[in-house]
């Protein structure tokens, strides 16, 4: 377990992972459940255990839609999406670790794609 990393994720997310009672409601309501290798309740649990590098290496951090369904519906106010965000940031903040680069964009464009999609993806996937 990487103690510094755990502290960094806890501080950055502002989440108290100890409040989680592992009911799984966040994962039950998550629209990306099928696409995520680790589900929101697992993010909370694995951060509590300090098993953060596993999450950082998983594509799950790019599958979260930041839809805040888990935040809204968690009966304990844990706010799992903020944990996912903090783990993703810990990853993309590493030098050379951006998940999206401007050179990829031209191939992704079509005539109707709103700017909003591109700026949001960069907010999420790159530093």
């Amino acid at each position, binding site marked *: 377990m990487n103690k510094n990393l755990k502290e960094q994720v806890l501080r950055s997310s502002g989440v108290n992972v100890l409040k989680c009672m592992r009911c799984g409601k966040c994962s039950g309501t998550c629209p990306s459940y099928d696409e995520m290798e680790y589900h929101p309740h697992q993010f909370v649990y694995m951060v509590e255990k300090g098993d953060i590098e596993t999450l950082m290496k998983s594509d799950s951090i790019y599958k979260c839609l930041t839809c805040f369904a888990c935040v*809204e519906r968690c009966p304990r106010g844990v706010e799992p999406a903020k944990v996912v965000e903090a783990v993703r940031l810990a990853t993309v903040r590493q030098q050379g670790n951006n998940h999206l680069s401007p050179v990829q964009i031209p191939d992704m464009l079509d005539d109707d794609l709103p*700017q909003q999609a591109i700026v949001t993806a960069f907010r*999420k996937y790159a530093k």
Partner: protein
Amino acid sequence: METFTYYPGCTLRTKAKDLDSYARSCAQALGIALEEPSDWQCCGGAYTTAKDEIATKLSAVRTLNAAKQAGNPLVTVCSACHNVIKQTNYDISNDEDMASKVNNYLKLDEAYTGETTVYHYLEMLRDVVGFDNIKAKVVKPFKGKKIAAYYGCLLLRPAKVLAMDDPENPVIMENFIKAIGGTPVIYAQRNECCGGYVTLEDKAQAQKRSSNVMNSAADMGADMIITACPLCLYNLKKNSGSDLPVYYFTELLAEALGLKEDTNE
């Protein structure tokens, strides 16, 4: 006449010109003056919830401060801008550490600490204009039309912060639909995500999400679906495989008020 500082956001200047132009013409017809700040920056599209992110919050703070300087409430029409700006305002008001870092960077004449009141355009219609007043001004009601309101994720959540409506059982868009003479359709997926920005790198996921939404609305008998978000409109139109028409709510409002030619017949 009430005056609001109006933040259009990047997409309303480009791909979502309709959302913007009808928002402006309707406001005028309803007795609301919209003043756009002389310069504004893109809000970034998504709120970075991390407490140690400062740079990504600055553009929203600049917009909030522009409204404060003008002495107006702030209104925005895109669901995403609304989400980013309200979440920023909430954190600046409640997280002293973040507020001091932001202000330390911006060096404003007077620190910004959350003074501006932020409205989504729909809230402005409900709370300032009043749905009854809109109803009285409708010249071309959507009589007999079954209209499905699509909230998606960004318009209502997190409810504690956005304070717009009940996130699980919202009524604001349904009441809007009634005001313009239509019949609201309630369906299960109205407040679930369309797939959002994931469309860039995972089309399959966006297709799955948006077709779920469209099929859910169609199953309940909707003739059309309305949204406030350019990215929702894109996903629902482009990725769902459904031919249910999708419109911006401002477009329908303009039509009901007699400010626009029919498009949906």
